[in-house]
């Protein structure tokens, strides 16, 4: 187990052989964070990020973040608005490529394959690392076509009956099958908000990804729909690895096994969810959790 403990202000010293997830020395003492508190590694990592920097033009948005995402776990990323958790999440499936001014440095690996290697095709990467967005965005096609789109373009099925099977399975796993099984031809955008988000989840799992990234999936939903999606995340954990960004600490506490706290583009503390919420080690984490700032 590797860990870095907070040191005296202004400098980082770590024993040799230990990964120091340290930052460039800061002059502003109020922001003196000297390395991430807690264990950034996971026992059986699916994705590993090391020394990731993300720039929007000249502005540094993510500052030297290293983090592991373990297999079949739900890791929650929490932090105040604008702290970079969504940016970091989007690095994991290279969705930041769509933003012209964004530049990513560092190493992110999916099962030992560097996803930022030059010449790497992002299309299969995004089939392996799926994403559910904050605002439900089903395609303006039928429910069936929404779920079937991924398998179709990736050539995952041979026949129509296979495709039907995948669609049914995905909708069942997403907990939507009973509600839509007799109206699969209705347009996807005609469902309610919660149903649309579950449709997006079904669409994502139809391509059988390894990792599912969720960017505040419940922030546009009412409490009942939120509860259903959280139930769903728990069920999906058995098959998939899930990284979820959330604004709600209660949700992070309910849903995740590990939690990572981000602050102003830096990873402040990582650890088991129970430990973070009952016994945070860093001052900033404690301030956030107790609500001193949001």
């Amino acid at each position: 187990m590797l860990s870095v403990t907070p040191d005296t202000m202004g400098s980082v010293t770590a024993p040799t052989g230990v990964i120091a997830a340290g930052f460039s020395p800061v002059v502003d003492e109020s922001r003196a964070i000297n390395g991430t508190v807690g264990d950034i590694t996971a026992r059986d990592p699916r994705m590993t990020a090391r020394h990731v920097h993300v720039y929007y033009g000249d502005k540094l948005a993510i500052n030297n973040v290293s983090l592991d995402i373990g297999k079949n776990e739900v890791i929650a990323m929490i932090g105040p608005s604008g702290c970079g958790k969504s940016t970091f999440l989007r690095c994991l499936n290279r969705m930041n490529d769509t933003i012209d001014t964004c530049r990513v440095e560092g190493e992110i690996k999916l099962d030992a394959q560097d996803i930022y290697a030059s010449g790497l095709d992002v299309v299969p990467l995004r089939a392996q690392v799926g994403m559910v967005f904050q605002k439900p965005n089903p395609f303006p096609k039928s429910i069936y076509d929404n779920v079937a789109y991924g398998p179709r373009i990736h050539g995952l099925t041979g026949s129509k009956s296979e495709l039907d099977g995948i669609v049914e399975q995905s909708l069942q796993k997403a907990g939507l099958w009973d509600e839509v099984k007799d109206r699969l031809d209705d347009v996807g955008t005609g469902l309610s908000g919660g149903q649309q988000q579950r449709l997006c989840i079904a669409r994502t799992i139809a391509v059988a990804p390894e990792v599912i990234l969720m960017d505040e999936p419940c922030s546009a939903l009412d409490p009942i729909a939120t509860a259903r999606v959280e139930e769903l995340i728990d069920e999906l954990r058995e098959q998939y690895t899930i990284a979820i960004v959330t604004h709600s600490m209660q949700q992070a506490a309910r849903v995740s096994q590990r939690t990572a706290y981000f602050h102003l583009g830096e990873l402040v503390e990582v650890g088991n969810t129970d430990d973070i919420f009952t016994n945070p080690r860093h001052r900033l984490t404690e301030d956030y959790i107790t609500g001193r700032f949001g």
Partner: protein
Amino acid sequence: MNKSAVDQPRTIDRVNASLKQRYNRERRFRWFGLGAVLLGLLFVGLMFLNIIGNGYGAFQQTRMLLEIDYHPEVIDPAGERDPATLSSANYAALVKSALRTRYPDVAERREKRELYGMVSSGAALLLRARVMADPGLIGTRQSIWLPADDDIDMLIKGHIDRKVPESERRLSDRVIGWVEQLESTGAIERQFNLTFLTGGDSREPELAGIGGAVMGSLYTLLVTLLLSFPIGVAAALYLEEFAPRNRWTDLVEVNINNLAAVPSIVFGLLGLAVFINFFGLPRSAPLVGGMVLTLMTLPTIIIASRAALKSVPPSIREAALGIGASRMQMVFHHVLPLAMPGMLTGTIIGMAQALGETAPLLMIGMVAFIVDIPGSALDPSTVLPVQIFLWADSPERAFMEKTSAAIMVLLGFLILMNLIAVILRKRFERRW
């Protein structure tokens, strides 16, 4: 001395004081706006009234009922029903003999010329067509409605003033007397003029039709549509979705926007120099006309298509990319179908503009007097606006109403195309 709180004017009083003036200003502005709209509508109404008033007459043709003797010795002396003989027979003589039978008192040559001049020269062609189609008519006697000469047509439609002294009139008293006689027996009347819609151009006003111009316009628009829609949509897609954002693409964008404002005759000159002189394509052909109009319509289509592409919400694009669609797949499976209604609307509006274009087509020669109705995009032809332009120049009185009628047809097509564009827009609004 300090003012007490009571002396200070309250906000509500100050507001009320200026309220009347504010509302008066707004009311004046509203009336000005309404007045402008009404004025515009008034002028449009006057224009339509003028055009329709002048033009509706052209949809009717004065015809004369004559009994024609299909004399075999005139049509087919040899009696063999040989098509060549039938085709070249003197059918005008049949018409003349029918007129002589009707008015046996006419003897003098000048009087006879006036009598024969009452029937259009197209009557002979009509008889020829009937006999060629049915040689069994030879030897029979049939009553048939034949087109009257354009002067008679104008007389019946009331455009020739009978009160003006004879020397200043085109028609002599004698002719007017014959016409009145025919009117009283019901042997001359106005009937629906199909020739106007189906026939080709002609020097004789009563035989002239817009059929050739309409077909020419149709072929030209077809070529324009087939060329400009794919090129315009593909260019817009590339510029919007795939092109890098650098100085070169900015330059291209500025140029396209500027091209939309270039006077259309410049494209005609370009077409003349490049398509006709350099490539040697046939002059006056709808193919070349279509290519010139494509150049003219492309900026409109590209600009409208880019606006349509920009309006597709980024959430749909992200969803598609997140699933693992490639750039091409995202654009063709998701963005293009959602942007298509906007692109179609822009295309229809561009086509409506192209339909009314005259100047560039004049440059490439689609201004000739062409009698035949074009059979393909390579035959020489003219287009509707040019036909209107040519007829407007003609001296015969009858061409005046024909010009207005052709304008009515052109306006009808334009209104139809714009209506389709509006319906499409309304139907496909906010599908997501």
